[in-house]
C-alpha cells in the first residue's frame, strides 16, 4: 500500500498526556520544558512517560496514550480501528481529525477530510433547524453553496420537515441526532473519519447510518471507522487495526483482527488477569471472579450447546444475602437474549473458598450470529460487580446436504421445537 494510492500516512506517531490536576507543579514543569527548549534540548517530561495502563497506578504523571504508531491507508480503503476503552483509539482519531496535535511523529493526508466525532457539532439551541443545518454544515467544512444545493435532501433524510423553522432546543434528542446525522451524511469528503457516533440513536437509526456509511465506502472513498463494536466493524471494513495500550497490536484483514480482538478480550477471564470486585465496602479485598468458556471454540454450530464456567473466590458468606452471579447473553444488536443467574429456579449457593459455577446453554436455542457474555454479581439487590464482553463466540448453522441453507432465521432465538401433525384417518 505505498506509492500513488496512499491517502493517509502516519509515521512514528506518539501522544503524551499528563495525568492529575493543573497546579503549581504544572507551572514548574512548563518552565522546565521552556528552559530545555531554549537550550535546544529534548523535553525532559517525555522521558518520564510510561505505558498507559488504566488499572495499575504508575510512578509518573505522564503516560503515552499512543506510542510509535505507523500505518498507511490507501484510496478507497475502509479501515476499522478497534481496541478496548482507553486503548488510544479516540486519541488517534483526535489527531487524525486535527483536534489536537501529536507529541512526536507526523500524519500526512491527501484529499478533503471530514471527521465525525459527534453528531450535530455546533448546534445552537436558539436557532431553528434550518439555521442549524447551515451552521453545522459550515462547521464540518461545507461551503454555503454546497449546503444550499443539498438542503432539501438533508431535510428529507432527517425526517423533521415539520420542525425545520422551530428552535432546536424544542427538538427531542432523537430529532437532534437525526438532523445532525442528515447533515453529516451529505458531506462529500474524499476521506471520512467516523467515531462511534453509531452508538447513539435507536436500532433503526443505527442501521440507517451503517447503510449510509456502506454507501460512502462503496463509492471509492476512504473511510476510517473507530469502534469497539467488532460486529459493526466486521460488516463495514475490509482491513482493521487493533490498538492496545497505545500501540498497534495487529494490522490485517478485518475478520482476522476481529478474531484476535475476541481472543484478547477472552484473556480477561484468564487466571493471571483476574479482576477485583468493582465496588468498595465489604467486598473490597480478596474476592475475585473469573470467567471462562468451556468449549474453547469461537465457532459453534447451533446443535452443539455452550458451557460457561465462572469461578468466584469468596472469603466469607452471608447466608441471608447470598451473592447472585448473573450472566447476560447479548447479541449483535445489543439485545439481551436472556439473563440467567445461579439463584434462579434451583438456587446454587456460593460457599466460602473457591466456587466454580457452570451454566450450560442448550443446543438448538441460539440463532446464527455472534454473541457476547456479560457477567455481573448482585448482592442484596445491589450490583457489586460487572464486566461486559468477557467473551464472545459465534454460532453457525450446520448446513446439511439437501436442505436449503438459511443464513439466519427471523427472530432472536431459533429453538428446536416439537412439531407434530394429526391427520384425520
Amino acid at each position, binding site marked *: 500500500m505505498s506509492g*500513488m494510492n496512499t491517502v493517509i500516512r502516519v509515521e512514528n506517531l506518539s501522544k503524551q498526556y499528563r495525568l492529575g490536576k*493543573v497546579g503549581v507543579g504544572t507551572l514548574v514543569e512548563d518552565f522546565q520544558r521552556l528552559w530545555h527548549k531554549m537550550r535546544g534540548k529534548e523535553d525532559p517530561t517525555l522521558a518520564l512517560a510510561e505505558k498507559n495502563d488504566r488499572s495499575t497506578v504508575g510512578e509518573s504523571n505522564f503516560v503515552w496514550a499512543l506510542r510509535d504508531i505507523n500505518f498507511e491507508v490507501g484510496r478507497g480503503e475502509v479501515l476499522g480501528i478497534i481496541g478496548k476503552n482507553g486503548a488510544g483509539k479516540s486519541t488517534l482519531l483526535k489527531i487524525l*481529525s486535527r483536534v489536537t496535535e501529536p507529541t512526536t511523529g*507526523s*500524519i500526512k493526508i*491527501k484529499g*478533503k477530510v471530514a471527521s465525525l466525532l459527534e453528531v450535530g457539532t*455546533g448546534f445552537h439551541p436558539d*436557532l431553528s433547524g434550518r439555521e442549524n443545518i447551515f451552521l453545522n454544515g459550515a462547521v464540518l467544512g461545507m461551503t*454555503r453553496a454546497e449546503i444550499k444545493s443539498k438542503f432539501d435532501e438533508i431535510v428529507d433524510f432527517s425526517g423533521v420537515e415539520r420542525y425545520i423553522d422551530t428552535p432546536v432546543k424544542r427538538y427531542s434528542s432523537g430529532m437532534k441526532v437525526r438532523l445532525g446525522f442528515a447533515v453529516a451524511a451529505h458531506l462529500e469528503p474524499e476521506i471520512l473519519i467516523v467515531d462511534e457516533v453509531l452508538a447513539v440513536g435507536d436500532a433503526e437509526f443505527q442501521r440507517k447510518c451503517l447503510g449510509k456509511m456502506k454507501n460512502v465506502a462503496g463509492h471509492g472513498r476512504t473511510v476510517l471507522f473507530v469502534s469497539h463494536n467488532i460486529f459493526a466493524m466486521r460488516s463495514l471494513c475490509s482491513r482493521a487495526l487493533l490498538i492496545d495500550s497505545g500501540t498497534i497490536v495487529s494490522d490485517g484483514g478485518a475478520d482476522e483482527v476481529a478474531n484476535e480482538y475476541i481472543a484478547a478480550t477472552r484473556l480477561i477471564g484468564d487466571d493471571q488477569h483476574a479482576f477485583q470486585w468493582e465496588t468498595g465496602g465489604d467486598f473490597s479485598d480478596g474476592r475475585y471472579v473469573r470467567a471462562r468458556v468451556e468449549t474453547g471454540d469461537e465457532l459453534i454450530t447451533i446443535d452443539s450447546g455452550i458451557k460457561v464456567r465462572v469461578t468466584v473466590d469468596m472469603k466469607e458468606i452471608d447466608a441471608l444475602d447470598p451473592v447472585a452471579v448473573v450472566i447476560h447473553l447479548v447479541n449483535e444488536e445489543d439485545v439481551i437474549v436472556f439473563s440467567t443467574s445461579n439463584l434462579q429456579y434451583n438456587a446454587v449457593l456460593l460457599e466460602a473458598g473457591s466456587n466454580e459455577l457452570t451454566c450450560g446453554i442448550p443446543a438448538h436455542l441460539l440463532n446464527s450470529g455472534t454473541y457476547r457474555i456479560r457477567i455481573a454479581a448482585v448482592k442484596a439487590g445491589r450490583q457489586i460487580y460487572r464486566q461486559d464482553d468477557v467473551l464472545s463466540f459465534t454460532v453457525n448453522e450446520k448446513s446439511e446436504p439437501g436442505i436449503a441453507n438459511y443464513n439466519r432465521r427471523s427472530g432472536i432465538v431459533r429453538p428446536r421445537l416439537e412439531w407434530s401433525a394429526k391427520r384425520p384417518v
Partner: protein
Amino acid sequence: MKDNDESWDIEVTARQSLFSFRFSEVWRYRDLLVLFVKRDFAAIYKQTLLGPLWFFIQPMLTAITMTVVFGRIAGLDTAGYPKIVFYLSGITAWTYFSECLIKTSSTFVANQSLFGKVYFPRIIVPLSVVVSNVFRFGIQLLMLFGLIIYYNIAGIRIVPNEYLLLFPVLLVLMAALGLGFGMFLSSLTTKYRDLQFLITFGVSLLMYLSPVIFPLTAVKDPFWRDVLIANPMTSIIETFRYAVLGGQGEFTLWLPLAYTTGFTIVLFMGSLFMFNRVQRSFMDTV
C-alpha cells in the same frame, strides 16, 4: 493522472515552523465566519422583547449615567463639548474595543466542546466576534450622529472635520488591539484560569486610564499624561472625538497614533503566534 507522492494536502507534525499561519485556509472557511456572525446576532436577542433596540439602550444609559455622575456631580471638564455627546463618543469607541477584547479572551474556554470535536481554523471564532461587533459599533455610531444632528438643530454647532478620513484606520486599530489582547489572554487562560478573574478588572482599569471620561487636555501632570498616552486606546479615542465632534485647535496626535500603530502591530503578531501555537494542542490542557 499520476499523483506525486509527496503532494500532501494536510501535514501535521509535532514540530512545525514557528509561524505557520495559513491565510488561504481561513479564506476557505469564510462562510463559517459569516454564519458565526449571524448566529451571534440571532442568539443574543432571542427571547427579548426589545431585541436589537438594546444596541441603543445600553450605551445611552451608560452615557446618561456618566453625564450625571462625572459631568454634573463631579463636575469634570468635557473640553467644551456638550456632555452627553462627549461621553457617548468615548463610550462608543471604548465599547467596541472592550467587547472585542472580552469576547475573544474566552475563545478557547467557551468553545472547548466545539473545538474538541471538529477542526476548522480556530481564529474564525475571534474574527467573527470582531466582525459582529463592527455591526454593533455601526449602529451605535448612527445613534451618535443622530444626537449630533439633534444638537445642530437645537442651535449648538457640532461639525465633523476632515480627520474623519482617519476613521477606517481607527477602526482597524481598535479591532486589532481588541483581537490582539483577546487572543493573547485566551491563549494564556487555556491552562491557567487565574487570568480570567483579572480581565474585567484590567479592562475597567484601562478605561479609567483612557480619555473616555475626561479629555486628555484636562490632564496637566506630564507623568500622568504619559501614562495615559501609553494606553494605546488613548490616541484612538482622542482622534475619534476630534474628528467626529469637529475638534478645535491643532491636531497634536500624530505621534501617539504612530505609537499605537506600532504597539498594535507588535501585539497582534505576537498574539497571533501564541494563538496559533495554543490552538494545536489546547484540548489537552483546557
